[in-house]
Each structure stands twice: as structure tokens, then as C-alpha cells.
């Protein structure tokens, strides 16, 4: 019943997962395997993070989520593993079913959220090695994201330098909720390292911001948490623009993953107005925020907003003005998955559709270069 899209499809957000904790362990640097086995605290922390794979919160805000592991209930592979842990089933249910040309893996396994940054860095190494061995090597359509302990720019840079030589890594991966806003100085060395290898920095839904997701305290319900992630995206774009990281790093490319797209237009208007009135505070930001955003940001579609009226769609695309930067994504295997054949309305202009479904990603990630 699911149809192949009529044109090329590139999926910019696939959350592959290991079959188990032990499966990742084999990729940990040897010194860390011993240390983790010896430290119950780390294992408990690790277990709680593993159980909430895909969740937005760490401590202090647990919610019953929509589905087990926030996954489509039909995405559990027949071999009994968790969703997106079995490559053959992932091929069948995603890559082959939709005739995908490429898929970008964005495993979210908590490397950047570890309070112990070295532990996180070791985990990041394991994740990257696991991606290579169990996903990239057997499946030529896949590309991967470099996991890093992003709260420590030096450790993150080291990991980027270690693996960036493998051209199948499409980007560096961060989460949108971080200990400080992402424009701040502590992250600059990370951007520098990514740029040394000409890699975009992908920033994905989720993460632990060391406090509530809202500026007015913790919400009570999962629906607030998931709707509220759009606020995290808005705030981080604001930070990156206002801190002038794109003046400091003119070649830097940022991919916003799994935030939806519609909030971009009002954010650009709002930032332009604020900049016009308050630019004396940020003299290093030398042009309109909307120009900066349209030059330096890419954004994936999912979860695509669903305007109620047909005419809202072309208006929205015009307002955002980033038809060359919007990139299709499914977010497989999560429950708010967007189907390639149904996510975009049928009346979207064919050229725009193809740009979104594949060509913008092909250009950004240089898949055919």
C-alpha cells in the first residue's frame, strides 16, 4: 500500500539503533569497557538513557510517550529487536519500499548528553564505529552522522578529526537542546573542526537542556514537550545568528533536523525587526538575520506542518523562501514519521517537490560528488 514516490527520494533523518546495549559495547575503546563495567553509576546512567532512547528529557521530566520507544508500532522487526535495529527490515520497510536513493543516519544514543564528557566521547566513538561496521559497510545507500560529546568542544573536535576521513559521514550531529545556547563560545571549536573537513553540522530534535524545555517551567504532558521542541529550534537559531558565528565561520552550514519548517518564517521576521532596532548590541552581526538564515541553514521537513487550507502551502513556502534548503526526511522509525509519498501536498510544484525530496540534500551532502 505504501507507494514509491515518483521521483528520487533521499531521507535525511533515519534513527538507526543497536539491537542492545551489549551490541554497542563491543565498539567501545577497550579502556572504557573495563571502566564502564567497574562503575555502577555509569551503567545506571547509561541504562536510563538507553531506556529513553529518542526521548527529549533526561532527568526531571518523564512522560508516557505516544508509543513504545516513540516508534511506529509497525516498525518492530520480526527478529525481535527494537525498531530500526535490523538492517534487512529497515531496507524492506523504508529504503526499498520508497525507492530511496540515499538515507542519512542520525542515531540518537546520548553521547552528547553524558555528564561525564569523556564517557560521552567514548560512547561517541563506539557509535561511529558501529555505524561504519553495521550500516555503512553493508548498505551503500546509507550515510552517517558523526556523533560527538558536543559539550566538550575539544573532545568533539578530536572525534571529528578521527573519523571525518571516511567520506560516508555526511555531517556532525548535535542535539537542539544543549547546556548553553549553541551560538556561545564554548561550541566554536566544534564548528571549526567540522569546517576543517567541510562538514555541515546537523542539529536534531531532542537533548537535555539542564532544565525545563520552556522558559516558564516544566510542562505536565508529553504533548507539550513534543510541540515545545519547536521553541528550542527557534531559540537556537536566534543564538547562532546573534552570536555572529556565521561572521566568524562564513562557510558554516547548519542543518536543522526534525523541527518542522513553518516556524522559520515568523522567526526570520521577528529577528529582522529585533536586529533593526537593537543591532547596536550585536555590531558583529552585519546584515539581516533572514539573509544569514537563508544562506547558512538547511532544514528537514519532518514533522511537516499541516496547514488547514490549500492556499496556505504555497504561501508558507514563499514566506520561508528556502526552497533550495528544505530537505525531506521521514524520521523513521518514530511515530510522527512522514511518508515520502504523502507528506508533501500533491499540488506543490514539481520542481520544488523534487528539490525537497532529493536534490537539495544531494547538493548539500554532495552525495554524487
Amino acid at each position, binding site marked *: *500500500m*505504501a507507494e514509491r514516490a515518483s521521483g528520487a527520494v533521499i531521507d535525511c533523518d533515519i534513527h538507526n539503533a543497536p539491537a542492545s546495549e551489549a551490541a554497542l559495547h563491543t565498539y567501545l575503546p577497550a579502556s572504557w569497557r573495563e571502566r564502564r563495567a567497574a562503575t555502577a553509576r555509569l551503567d545506571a546512567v547509561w541504562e536510563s538513557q538507553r531506556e529513553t532512547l529518542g526521548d527529549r528529557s533526561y532527568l526531571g521530566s518523564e512522560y508516557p510517550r505516544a508509543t513504545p520507544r516513540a516508534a511506529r508500532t509497525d516498525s518492530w522487526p520480526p527478529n525481535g529487536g527494537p525498531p530500526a535495529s535490523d538492517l534487512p527490515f529497515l531496507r524492506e520497510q523504508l529504503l526499498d519500499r520508497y525507492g530511496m536513493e540515499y538515507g542519512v543516519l542520525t542515531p540518537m544514543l546520548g553521547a552528547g548528553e553524558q555528564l561525564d564528557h569523556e564517557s560521552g566521547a567514548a560512547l561517541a566513538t563506539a557509535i561511529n564505529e558501529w555505524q561504519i561496521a553495521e550500516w555503512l559497510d553493508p548498505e551503500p545507500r546509507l550515510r552517517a552522522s558523526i556523533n560527538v560529546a558536543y559539550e566538550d568542544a575539544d573532545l568533539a573536535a578530536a572525534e571529528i578529526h578521527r573519523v571525518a576521513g571516511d567520506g560516508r559521514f555526511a555531517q556532525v550531529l548535535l542535539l537542539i537542546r544543549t547546556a548553553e545556547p549553541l551560538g556561545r563560545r564554548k561550541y566554536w571549536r566544534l564548528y571549526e573542526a567540522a569546517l576543517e573537513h567541510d562538514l555541515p553540522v546537523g542539529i536534531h530534535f531532542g537533548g537535555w537542556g539542564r532544565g525545563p524545555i520552556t522558559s516558564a517551567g516544566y510542562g505536565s504532558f508529553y504533548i507539550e514537550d513534543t510541540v515545545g521542541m519547536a521553541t528550542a529550534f527557534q531559540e537556537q537559531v536566534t543564538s547562532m545568528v546573534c552570536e555572529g558565528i556565521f561572521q566568524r565561520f562564513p562557510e558554516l552550514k547548519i542543518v536543522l533536523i526534525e523541527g518542522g519548517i513553518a516556524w522559520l518564517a515568523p522567526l526570520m521576521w521577528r529577528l529582522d525587526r529585533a536586529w533593526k532596532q537593537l543591532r547596536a548590541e550585536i555590531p558583529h552581526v552585519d546584515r539581516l538575520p533572514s539573509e544569514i538564515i537563508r544562506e547558512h541553514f538547511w532544514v528537514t521537513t519532518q514533522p511537516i506542518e499541516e496547514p488547514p487550507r490549500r492556499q496556505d502551502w504555497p504561501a508558507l513556502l514563499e514566506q520561508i523562501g528556502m526552497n533550495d534548503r528544505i530537505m525531506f526526511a521521514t524520521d523513521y522509525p518514530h*511515530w*510522527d514519521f512522514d511518508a515520502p509519498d504523502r*507528506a508533501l501536498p500533491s499540488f506543490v510544484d514539481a520542481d520544488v517537490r523534487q528539490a525537497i525530496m532529493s536534490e537539495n540534500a544531494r547538493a548539500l551532502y554532495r552525495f554524487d560528488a
Partner: protein
Amino acid sequence: MPEGGAERPAPATRHVVAHVDEIPPGSRKIVEVAGRSIGVFNVDGTFHALRNRCPHQGGPLCEGFLMSSLRSRGPGHYDHRPGETLVRCPWHGWEFDLRTGQSWFDPERTRVRSYRVSVENAGEPVPGPYVAERYGVTVEDSYVVVDLGR
């Protein structure tokens, strides 16, 4: 779908989809009927059939969890009526009443196609024709029949 009076539906809209004992209470079967994927459910002995395609993004609706009715008279109140009468799409969680195909969030305007389902005994003189592509129909057995007609 409502059926007018004692009229029979047009020929060949009634399809045998299973032996009745293939779908015991609490189970379901996804069947292909005339190019449509349809989910047939047995809830406590009553059969229901819905199109296995969510009107949202085409997800495999009938593979989803069955849920109980949940009403609320206000925040903090959960009037839960066990007895699973809703199917929840495995993708975005849209829930549909098994009996009518109406969605929970917008019963008036958003629904999935539901079909009349009956259990027929092959020994009874029921006018056909039936489409029974994969079933060897014997006189003694009972069959689940889905009617695609309105």
C-alpha cells in the same frame, strides 16, 4: 454502511475473506479484497472491517493497537471503558471507531471506510454470487464475509 431494506447489494460485492475460526475473538486479519487492503477484527464475537489505509498519510491503520474508549469530563478525569473499540494508526496515532470508521478527533468529517461484515454459513441458501478466490467453500463451514458495497 447502511443497507436499504431487504434489497441485496449488487453482485460480487460480497467477499469471503476467511473461515470464521481463522479470526477468533480478540484477533484480526488483514485481507486483500478487490485491490483493497482491509482489516477484519473480531471483538468479543462481533466482526468489524475497516480499510487498512489511514486517511492521514496512508499508514497501515489496521495493524495498530486496539484501544479502549476514553472520555473525560475535565482535566484529571479519565473515564476509561475497557473493551477495545478503537484502532490506533501505528504512525501518527489517529484513532478510529471500529464500528463506524469515525475518527476520534473529528468524527463528523474525518473517517476511514468501514464495511459490513457478516458470518455466513455456506449451507444456508444465501443468494450469491460470492467471490471466494482462496477458499474452498464447504457446506458445513462458516465464513467471514465482507461487503464492499454501500
